[in-house]
Structure formats: C-alpha cells, structure tokens
C-alpha cells in the first residue's frame, strides 16, 4: 500500500471538497472555516513535497493571521453597507455561466494539452542538504539573490498597514463609529429571531406603564412568520 499515494489523495480530496465548500456555503463564516481547512491541507501537501518550512509558514501566516483577519472583517462588517449579492437578471446570469465555462475549458486545455516546463534550478536535494536543509537554503536565496524584492515587499506591506490605519481612523478622535447591533453576517439581525416559524413567544420583561399607555401592540410578542430572509438585509444593499 503506497502510503504517500493514500496520504496525497486524502489531502487533495479534502482540499478540493473544502474549496467547493468555500464557494457553495450560504454562510460566509462557514466559507471562512472551509478555507482554513483547505489551507491546512495545502500545508500538508507542502510537507509531502519536502518543503516543511513553507508548510509551517503557510499555517502560521496564511491560516493563522490572514484568514483570522478575514474572519474579523466578516464578523464586524455592517451588512447594510454591502452591495447586492444576487442578481436575478437572466441575461447577466447566462453570460456569467457562459464565461465561466469558457474559462474552465481554457484551463483544462492548458493543463491537459501541454506540458508545463520551467527552468531547472540548482536547488536539487543534494545542494539543499549541503547548505543544511530547506530553511537554510530558503534563507540564503531570500537574503542574497532576492534581497531587493524582499525589501520592496516588506515596504509594500508596511504601506498597506499604515494605509489601513489611516482609512479606519475616524475624522475626530472622539467620533463614535456607527454600527448596527448585528452579530455577524452569519446570523439574521440580532438575537431576536430565535423561534421557529409561526410560534408565539413572550419576552420576560413586562411592558412598562408608559408603553401600555401608548396603545401600540405589546412588545412582548415575538412572532416569526415566513422567511428568515425577510428579516435580514444581508445581500439586499443599502435600505
């Protein structure tokens, strides 16, 4: 039983299934979770290719930092500020499906029809073992041959961080940031809608005398009828 074949098949299969899950989940947080699982399995494939440093860096940086910040954004974004997600326009949908199929065809032809060739580098296993291992070889080439791109990349990242801070700062330091009381994109607005369809519920807090005076319907009744979609504005643009 060739164990590395089994291992690769397992890692690759879960990777592809999770990638499908990213696209197909209704809940954006679930998409994020599937993406995280996909990244970890990609790290596994890196280990199989003998790039163990890259594998741990993939987990630490990509899964452990970038995806975490992505999940932060998903949880804190104001759903009302999002644009419309679905378009029921038939022409747009048909064009989208056609273009998608064309892209898939192109990629299949590129992969199956030709062989991918590159320039053989001098990073053969013997040379790597000479330098002392993967990490050492990577370090050497990063800090000697590719020093300039490395420094430029770090500058670009620093500019990105400063830009993010400048963009997120309110005009005056005392200004309050307006935010709706939402939980995240994964839930309908607020925690009020916990009852199944058509059930009447009662809030344990009784109406005050002032509220009873106004003559409006009691605040205590929570009725959820119809579609949960009607109770959220996610994907329906600014209302």
């Amino acid at each position, binding site marked *: 039983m060739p164990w590395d074949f089994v291992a690769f098949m397992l890692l690759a299969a879960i990777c592809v299934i999770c990638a499908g899950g990213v696209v197909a989940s209704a809940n954006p947080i679930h998409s994020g979770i599937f993406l995280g699982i996909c990244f970890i399995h990609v790290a596994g494939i890196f280990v199989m290719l003998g790039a163990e*440093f890259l594998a741990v860096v993939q987990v630490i940086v990509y899964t452990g930092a970038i995806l975490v910040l992505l999940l932060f954004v998903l949880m804190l974004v104001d759903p009302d500020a999002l644009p419309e997600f679905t378009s029921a326009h038939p022409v747009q949908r048909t064009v989208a499906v056609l273009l998608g199929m064309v892209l898939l065809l192109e990629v299949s032809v590129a992969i199956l029809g030709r062989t991918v060739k590159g320039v053989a580098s001098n990073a053969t296993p013997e040379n790597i073992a000479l330098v002392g291992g993967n990490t050492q070889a990577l370090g050497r080439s990063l800090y000697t041959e590719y020093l300039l791109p490395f420094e430029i990349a770090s500058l670009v990242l620093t500019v990105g961080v400063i830009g993010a801070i400048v963009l997120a700062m309110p005009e005056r330091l005392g200004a309050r940031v307006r935010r709706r009381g939402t939980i*995240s994109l994964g*839930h309908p607005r607020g925690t009020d809608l916990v009852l199944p369809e058509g059930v009447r519920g009662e809030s344990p807090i009784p109406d005050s005398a002032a509220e009873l005076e106004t003559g409006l319907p009691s605040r205590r009744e929570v009725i959820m009828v119809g579609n949960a979609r009607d109770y959220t504005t996610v994907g329906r643009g600014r209302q």
Partner: protein
Amino acid sequence: MADMPLWLNFIIAFLIMNILLVGMAYMTYYERKVLAAMQDRMGPMRSGPKGLLQPLADGVKLLGKEDLIPAAADKWVFWFAPLIVFVTAVVGVAVIPFGGTIHVFGQDINLFITDLNVGALFVLAFGSIGVYGIILGAYASANRYSLLGGLRSAAQVISYEIILGLSLVGIFILTGSLSLREIQLAQQGTISIFGLDVSNWYVITQPVAFIIFMIAAVAETNRAPFDLPEAETELVSGFHTEYSAFRFSFYFLGEYISMIVISLFASTLFLGGTSGPGSGEYWGLGIVWLLVKTILFLFFYIWLRATLPRFRYDQLMGIAWKVLLPAVLLNIMLTALTRLRGNGQISSGQLVAVIAVTVGVLVLIWGLNQLSNRWADAESA
C-alpha cells in the same frame, strides 16, 4: 534519531499524551493549592487526602452538567470550536524532546515523538490554529458580547504570537537550526563568563528574549494579567460564556494544556531542556530535570495570576505593539551583529557604525514624535 517501528512510535506518543493529560488535570490542583498558599488559605482539602482527588471530582462534575446549546447558535461550529483549542494544544507536545535515544529491551527508543527540523515553528503553528477555537466559539454563541470578547481575545493572541515567534529568532541565529532537539543539544556546550564555566543555556545569552518570551507566553495563553477577554468581571465570561459542561472544559483544559506545552517549550529553548546534573548518565534524571523546569514555569504563571491586576485591553495591545515589538526587533539585530562580529564577518568598526546609525535613527524618531505632539497640542490649544 533511531528509526522506530510504527507501533513503538504509537506507544511513545500515547504515553507522552497521557502524561500530558494527567499533568493537565493535576495542574488545576496545583494551581488551586498555590493560589491558596499565596492567599493564606488551604485550597482543596476534602476530596481525598489533602484534596488530591479534586481533579477527579472536577472531571465528574463537568461531565455531569447540563449541556446547553443556545437556540440561535450555529450548531456545527458550536460543537467544533472547543475541539480546535483542545486538539491543537495537545499536538504541540509532539516535538518536545524528553531525552535522546536510549537502548532498552533490545530496542532503540527515541524519548520524543518526533524531531522535525522546523520543530519550534511547529509549536507556533499549532498555537496559531488555536485562535480559531476562540473566534469560532465566539461567533457560534450567537451572543454579541461573546463575539466582542472573542474578537478581543483573538486580536490579543495574534499580536502576542508575532512577539513569541520573533523572540525566538535570536535563538535560531545562535543555534543555526529550528529543530528543538538541536537547540537543546546546543545548550549543552559550555561558555565561560567571568571565568566561570556554565552551560550555554540561552537564558544567559538571550536574557531580553527570555523576558519577552515569558510575557508573550502569558498573553498567548490568555492568562492573568492578560486575561481581560475571559475575566469574570468583564463581558460575563468572554467567548466561552455560552459553553457549559464538557464543552467549557475543553476550553478550560485546553488553556491549561497550552500553558504546560509552552512551559515545556520554554524549558527546552531557554533552560536547556533535559540537561542538569546527572542527566548525561541517567535518562530518567533528564526527564526529571525537564519536569522540574516546567513546574518552575508553571509556578511563575500561577504567581502572576495571584499577584498582578489585569491589564486593560488598550494597555495590553499597546504593550505588544509599542514596547515588545521594537524590543524584540532590537534583540534580533543585536544578536545578529554579535554573531557576525564573533564569526569575524564584520569588523568592530562596522559593528559600532551600525549600532550608532540605529541609535541615531531611534533618537530621530523619538524627537520627531515629540515635535509632532507639541504641534498637535499647540494646534488644539
């Protein structure tokens, strides 16, 4: 490192994992006893002689509690999140060396589960994955306050993770390898300070990194004084408010296991791991020394919890980004320069020039900062 048959590997892994789990259970007992001693009381005394069966009682209690899931909770994620924290904490122990290779019963046995050549980063990687347990637990609770507490906690953990990793770069420069076994072996050489021959423990050659590592380790495991996100007086209980019974115990015990693994990690990286008087001849003594050092670190953790008040969240983040990060980067620079000077790759003149330029730039930045503060004050006044 000997090539062991798979069943032997499994037995070693099983043993180490079980010792870790029992250690975690008795860590709760140890903490309660030490906290009690520092607070001039007795701690658990009723369950068993001197309260030694208290962890058992706690376990039975937690298993027996009602398992509540909030109605609006995302069920799968609610179920999944505590497991991430627990599993990633336990896996970290796979690279810690408990000794070398011994020869018993006719077999060559490695006293560690594996020796990856990126071992130190492996522990950090699994710490990074552990953050997901916090974020997803906070999200799945369908509770605004849990979400906020969880996000705060996650931001704290990822900030201190950077510092944790960077504080180890000095050690990697001095050892030339990321493997924990190599790092431990490199500490068995001797260096002489002021005429005294001592073991080359990295706590002596990298004191700043040691201090920063300890601070970052305490913050990483969400322990006091960095436990604002899960303190009882704040945000109810933070991200694990809605968790009860055994799900809560996954978070709770996962935190303790993470403490134990980081203590083992720190002992291996800074205090020489299994080295100590007599550990060369008897491998058992090596394990004893490692456990003694680990218990010392755990005592330090509990001591901090007993004595220090907690940091406010902005103070916490301020310390990470404004104090520890520059300090750790300076440490890396100094270590690298010293290593280059020691190897003769740069001359004394170059060394002094680099340090002078760095100090000059830092003074310049400080000066500009002061100036800009003055201008801002003058403008708003």
